[in-house]
């Protein structure tokens, strides 16, 4: 199976986020970057499929120079080779603009399977994988926890709401957006890092790909979430208040 995994580099979770002067993106200067978590699960799924059925795992990532470190990490964990779509206007592109880049890079490879993360940890649109499928003209399925190879294609397990799952069979080639938590992630190893050095990392120039950057969605402004604390007194007898509290914990806060 030839599997392509789309991996995005996002700010590290602990990173102190500051809004840039433009008000449209964050200050990237002193940020640390890491691999988008659902993409790490997509990579893990691809590696496990390869280990079971053979084939090749190719990583594709669009972004500036710095993205190379995340690509190396993916190669170190076991991907066979990588495509780096070099572009500096990532923050200006909407999901369609990014999917256009990825589709142009992926198309010549003719993969059996394209895996993306469900959504990115920075903008969280959850759109890129689905649009990519449309651009490649492939069937897709979202929120995938497990992939199994069948005779004619694949069987996938989707996460639904409230602890429900759905299993569907679909043909390949296909695009899947992978949800976090379906597998156990592997750790990076020294041997992997050393092997990664000799693996192929091909850079593609965004300008050469004839991928339109025209945005259909424009970003107006971003802001940090406001901290809110509000206190609510639950009226009634002790029993009534307790019942109301349980209701709230169950259906509003959803911790029960």
């Amino acid at each position: 199976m030839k599997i392509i995994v789309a991996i995005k580099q996002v700010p590290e979770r602990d990173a102190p986020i500051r809004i840039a002067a433009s008000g449209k993106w964050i200050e990237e200067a002193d940020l640390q970057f890491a691999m988008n978590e659902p993409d790490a699960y997509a990579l893990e799924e691809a590696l496990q499929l390869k280990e079971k059925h053979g084939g090749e795992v190719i990583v594709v990532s669009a972004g500036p120079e710095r993205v190379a470190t995340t690509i190396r990490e993916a190669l170190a964990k076991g991907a066979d080779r990588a495509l780096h779509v070099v572009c500096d206007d990532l923050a200006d592109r909407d999901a369609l603009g990014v999917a256009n880049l990825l589709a142009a890079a992926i198309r010549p490879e003719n993969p059996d399977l394209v895996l993306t993360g469900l959504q990115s940890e920075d903008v969280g649109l959850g759109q890129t994988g689905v649009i990519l499928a449309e651009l490649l003209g492939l069937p897709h399925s979202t929120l995938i926890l497990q992939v199994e190879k069948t005779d004619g294609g694949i069987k996938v397990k989707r996460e639904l709401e409230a602890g429900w799952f759905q299993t569907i069979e679909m043909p390949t080639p296909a695009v899947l957006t992978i949800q976090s938590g379906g597998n156990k992630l592997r750790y990076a190893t020294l041997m992997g890092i050393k092997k990664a050095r000799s693996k192929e990392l091909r850079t593609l120039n965004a300008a050469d790909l004839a991928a339109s950057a025209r945005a259909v969605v424009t970003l107006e402004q971003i802001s940090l979430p406001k901290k809110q604390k509000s206190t609510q007194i639950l009226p009634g007898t002790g029993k009534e208040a307790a019942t109301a509290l349980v209701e709230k914990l169950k259906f509003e806060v959803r911790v029960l």
Partner: protein
Amino acid sequence: MMSQPWTLAEPSHFSSAEQILFAVLAILSLALFWRRFSPILRRILASKKDADFHLAPVGKRIRDFVWEVALQGKVIRQRPLPGLAHAFVFWAFCAFAVVTLNHCAALYGAGFLDPHSPVGIAYFYFAAIFALACAAGIFGLFIRRFVIRPKWLEPFSPESGVIAGLIFLLMVTYLAAFFVQPDGVAGRALWWVHALTLLAFLPIIPHTKHLHLVLSPFTVFLSRGGFSKIPPLQGDEDFGLVAGKDLTQLASLQAYSCVECGRCTEHCPANNTGKLLNPKQVILGVRAYLNEYGPQSEEALLGKHNSQKAIFECTTCGACEFQCPVGIEHLPIVIGMRRGAVNTGEWEDEHGAKLFLALERGSNALGISATERDKFIAKNALPFYDGTQEYLLWLGCMGAYDPKGREIVLSLVRVMRYLNVSFGVLRKEKCSGDPVRRLGNDLVFQQLAEANLEALAQANTRKIISICPHCVRTIQEDWKEFGTPPPVEHHSEFLARYASQLPSVPNQEKIVYHDPCYLGRYRDVYDEPRAVVAHAGQLVEAERHRERSFCCGAGGGLVFLGEETGERVSHARARELTATGADVVGAACPFCNTMFQDALAAQGPNAPRLLDIAQLAARGLPETEAGSVK
């Protein structure tokens, strides 16, 4: 010629038949010895070179050699009675070397010690005293091994009995020669029995644990030169101890030197609480591997002769390495095999992978957001280090994120503020890398060490103080592979210096001090924390203390690895601490602290309370507004 009573009987002449017979037998004996010994020597020499080995400082090597080999200091100190018995056997062997040479030389009329000359008489009497002591010693050791049979001397070894018999015979034939005529039948017979025993003894040496007679003086002299010294990886193909080709000459020499005394296993916390790990078997496993596959083999080390499960049960407490009388260094081997398994991705463990991933992406071993550390610093108004303060206060993962660890840090802060000692913390600090170092993840360890070294250099750090013995050791020793760490000290060392300036505590509770492995055996700091404890109450000792202290179970990254098989190490230790009847357990390590919280609670309502020495030191201080946690 009539011999005087009480001189050694030595036949005055031998026939040429006797001379030829002895020569043939001696050559045979030596040949047999060499036939068995040379393959071993070849396997040791054909092992990989120890790239990081330096003979300097030779002075220390000579001191260790004199203490451990010549004086048998370690053997006696760790097991006084059997140790003394062994020492007498050893000293007798040394004294006997001259006697034996003379014994053989006499056959060819070249004896250099005349049994009737004053020098001869003096020397033979001198050797006789040792022969007596040795015979008694070997008899005692025989009784111990075959009648008392302590569990760490398993498995039963009949050849030890044969050896004991031969040594006993050597001594008895020597002593008996004082009571017979030199040229009588008895004198000649004794001479021959003595000589034949010697010739029989020689070929047995190489394939029994008595090989240590030949190898251990070298093993002790050629130690790696540091406790739990982890060698740097060499080149792109070195991932630790993966296969035989990775075993170094020192590792192979040590594997063949093991005398199977079981001291390491006797003191191993893992083995004592029902785990698979047995440090003696780890070493013998390496030996068995070398015997089967040889030093250049590609066959995995973790497999037939050593188990991955056992290797990852080690707390790296160092009791084994500390105890070993023949200079075997277990930790470079145990950690080396872990490196081999982790650096190649062979080791699959849910908790281990979680820890590694947390440290690949995040800053701390607990997997908590670094903003929690920022909040803790802000809330307690801890100043940032700017190069002007005396100490850089290293928080460590426990001090920055763990509630108990934070209490310890804040107690130390109170003391430092009271003493007007200036300090500051780093803006961004990452895990020192201790758990990944001990678990063998060189990739993450290097990343952490380098990031921290850079942050410390940028802050112009002059001196570090830390509440965590694991951080102290890792910063001071293990980071050296990647740069020059600033000097670092444990808070016990600081507190001991200032103890006299702290207000004393009127309440004289009984406090039992628990030696953390990484402070005691790893750093040789025993007295300082005791001075702090003595200042705060009445110091009492647990049965096992100082060099012999028993691990809390947290080290070697195990605190992050989830369930233990068998009894929990921390519970075994907590029981021992409770048995002292102390009111308080004084700890000096945040990991010990976290292990003992649960373990002491399980000891019932009379369990002692648990306090770090920083909290003990701060007890007498006036209350201040500082000291709130979270």
